[in-house]
Every structure is written in C-alpha cells, then in structure tokens.
C-alpha cells in the first residue's frame, strides 16, 4: 500500500477552496448581508432628519454597527450546515489538527462574506456623506477589524452547535466580545476627524485581531469537539 499525505498548508488551502465553492453555489447569505447593509445605509439618514452635519458625525459608527448586525444571521449558519450534514465528523477524522481547519473556516468566512462588504464600504461611506479623506482609513480599519469579527463569530457559531434557539443566543453571546473591535475601529476615523494620529487605535485593532487569530481556532475546535461528542 502506498499513501501520499498532503502537508497541513495544502489541506488548509484546499479546505478554504471547498468552503468558497460551497458558498458560491448558494449566494443567499451574501445577498442578505449586502442587502441588510444597504437597508441600514438607506434608512439611517431618513431617520436622522435633514441636517447634513448630523450624518457626517455618525456615518463612521453607522457603517461599523451595520456591518456587525448584517453578518449575524449568516454567522449562525457558519458551522451549522456542516454539523447537520456530518462534514464536521469527517473533518474530525482528518490527520491535521481541528484547530487548523477551524482557522481555515474563519478565514474563508472572511473572504466570502466580509471582503464584499469591505469593497463596497467606500460607496456606503459616500452615501453617508463621509469626508473623502476618511474613506481610505475606513477601509483599512474595517479590513483588519472584520477578520477579528469573523473569528469571534466562528467561536460563537461553534458554541451554539446543536443548541435550540441558537439564532437568538448568538448575538447576545458574541456582540459584547465585538465591542472592543467596534470602539477601536470607529476610533481610527474619529482620530482623523480631529486631526490626531489614527495609529494608536489602528495598532490596538490589529493587536486584537492577532489575539483572536491565535485563540479563536482553539476555542472553536474545543467547542466543535464537544458538539460532535454529544
């Protein structure tokens, strides 16, 4: 018998490709995220009234809060489908650590669901009357912060596997964990508005993202093991 085992990195990349392929076949989650975001961007100025300055003050926060709320329904399904169809059992029989596969899940979710929001965020910013000089910083802060949001969402999704009413539990459990990301993410652009340096907030945001890159795969793998062991 002759066996050829692939390296961890090739399995990691292959699993990201598998998730991208799976999600590309059913775009409803992505459409709902972008659609929800567009609704927030349209409704918020209507609710705020006709004074343009008000919109400029809150535009940055609206995009960040909109992003966090828009992805909630899709986070619930991040691992649920694979749990229900038995794919998580098959992953557990892979020779590479479950933590590596969980990291690939977090990154593939970010690539599929959040990159489109990052790309469209300048358009949302223009609709919300954000100063043009702030837009590159918005893109930079969302790019780094959204990866942390994906990884927190991954752990949350693992926590509610097999739980009844998980869709209600999930936002309550993970939004508090996303609060520091929101504060430092919004802080980057608020610093620019008052002509201060944005780097302090940006570095803290990147540091948090790195922390979640390290801890989230371990927490998620532990929770998945508990779920498939039930």
């Amino acid at each position, binding site marked *: 018998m002759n*066996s050829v085992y692939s390296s961890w990195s090739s*399995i990691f990349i*292959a699993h990201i490709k598998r998730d991208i392929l799976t999600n590309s076949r059913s775009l409803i989650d992505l459409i709902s995220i972008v659609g929800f975001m567009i609704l927030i961007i349209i409704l918020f100025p209507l609710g705020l009234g006709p004074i343009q300055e008000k919109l400029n003050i809150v535009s940055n926060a609206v995009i960040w809060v909109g992003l966090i709320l828009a992805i909630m329904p899709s986070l619930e399904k991040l691992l649920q489908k694979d749990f229900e*169809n038995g794919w998580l059992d098959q992953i557990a029989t892979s020779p590479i650590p479950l933590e590596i596969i969980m990291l690939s899940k977090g990154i593939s979710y970010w690539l599929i669901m959040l990159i489109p929001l990052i790309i469209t965020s300048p358009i949302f910013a223009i609709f919300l009357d954000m100063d043009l000089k702030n837009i590159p910083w918005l893109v930079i802060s969302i790019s780094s912060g959204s990866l942390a949001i994906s990884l927190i969402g991954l752990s949350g999704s693992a926590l509610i596997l097999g739980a009844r009413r998980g869709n209600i539990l999930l936002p309550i459990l993970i939004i508090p964990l996303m609060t520091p990301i929101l504060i430092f993410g919004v802080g980057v652009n608020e610093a620019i508005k008052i002509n201060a340096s944005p780097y302090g907030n940006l570095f803290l945001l990147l540091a948090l993202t790195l922390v979640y890159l390290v801890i989230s795969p371990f927490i998620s793998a532990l929770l998945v093991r508990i779920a498939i062991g039930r």
Partner: protein
Amino acid sequence: MLYLKDLTIQRGNKIVFSNFNAVIRSGSTTLIKGKNGSGKSTLLRAIAGFTPLEGGVIKQNKNDIFKNNEEWVKNLIFLDTKNGLSKDLTVAENLNAWLTIKGWSSNKEVIKMALKSVSMEKYADLYISQCSEGLKKRAALSRLYLSFSNNVDFWILDEPTNELDTSSLVLFKKLVFKFLKQNGTIILASHDPTIIEKKV
C-alpha cells in the same frame, strides 16, 4: 487489535454503557446489533474518538486512541447516517474535498475509480441536493474504495446499507470482502444481520 476496556459512556444524564468490554481482532467484522436508542451509534462514535468516555479506555494495540487521536484517525474511515456530504457540491466535488481533508492525493482518475466501485461514475457531476437518498449513500460509500491505496485499517460504519438497493448492496459487500482480504477491520452497526454474509 482493538481493546475496549471497562467502557462507561454517558449521554446527558443517562449512562448508555457501564463497564463494557470487548476485543476486536484485526481482519474481522464486528456487527453491533440492538434496539433503536440502545446506544449503537454512541458506541461507534466513541470508538471513532468523537464521544468522550466517562470511564475505561480504548486501545489500538497499546495506544490509547484518545491520547493518540491524530494517528488513530489516519487509520480509519467513519461513515454514519449523515453521510458528510454538502448539498451544494457535486458527487465528485464532495469526494475530492473529503480526499483533501484526509490528506490523500486526489485526481480525476482516483475519483473516477472510487465512484465506479459503487456504480456512481455517471452521477459524478450531479449535485447532492439532486440525488436520491440511495445515491447519497452510494456517494458516501465510494470513500471506502480509497482505503485500498491509503493504509486504512479500520472502517466504522453506522447503518451503511440503509437506502441501498439490491445491486448496490452487492457492490458494498464486494468492497467489504476486499477490505477483509487485506486484513482490514470493520465495526458496523446495522439492523440487517445479512450484511456480513459471504454471498456476493
């Protein structure tokens, strides 16, 4: 050899097994029979290393399978009633994804041969969402063929023949006897006692 020693398994507040002992020889088929809800699947999931033990130990030769999980899972194929197939992928794409997470080399020829072993080659490009339950089961069973080139020693199968028609059952049995000839070990749960009869 696989040793199940003093196993105690709990699900929720219910103890499913208490001080369960068994020895499973290499190159044998072990059929687990029992009523619905008697814990057949739980036992299989424990042997696969998924369900933690409240007490006891499972050893492959001298190695505790929970402590040497990485080595243990390399040697086994686990299939249960959920099949582990994504409905958004085709039969061939599912098999390819499974091959890659097992760390085994994958190419069109390997996938074609595996699907041919369960007479699924003409359904390779069919989405799982379009497959009947029987076709889904055959797509899942095609993984067994890949044991022969990838040093697999154990098959752990939960109700593998559910939804299979007579001709598919014959193909499944051919795979079983080929695996046994190579000294493979099969542990399966089924309500069908004829599953391990040697008539093919």
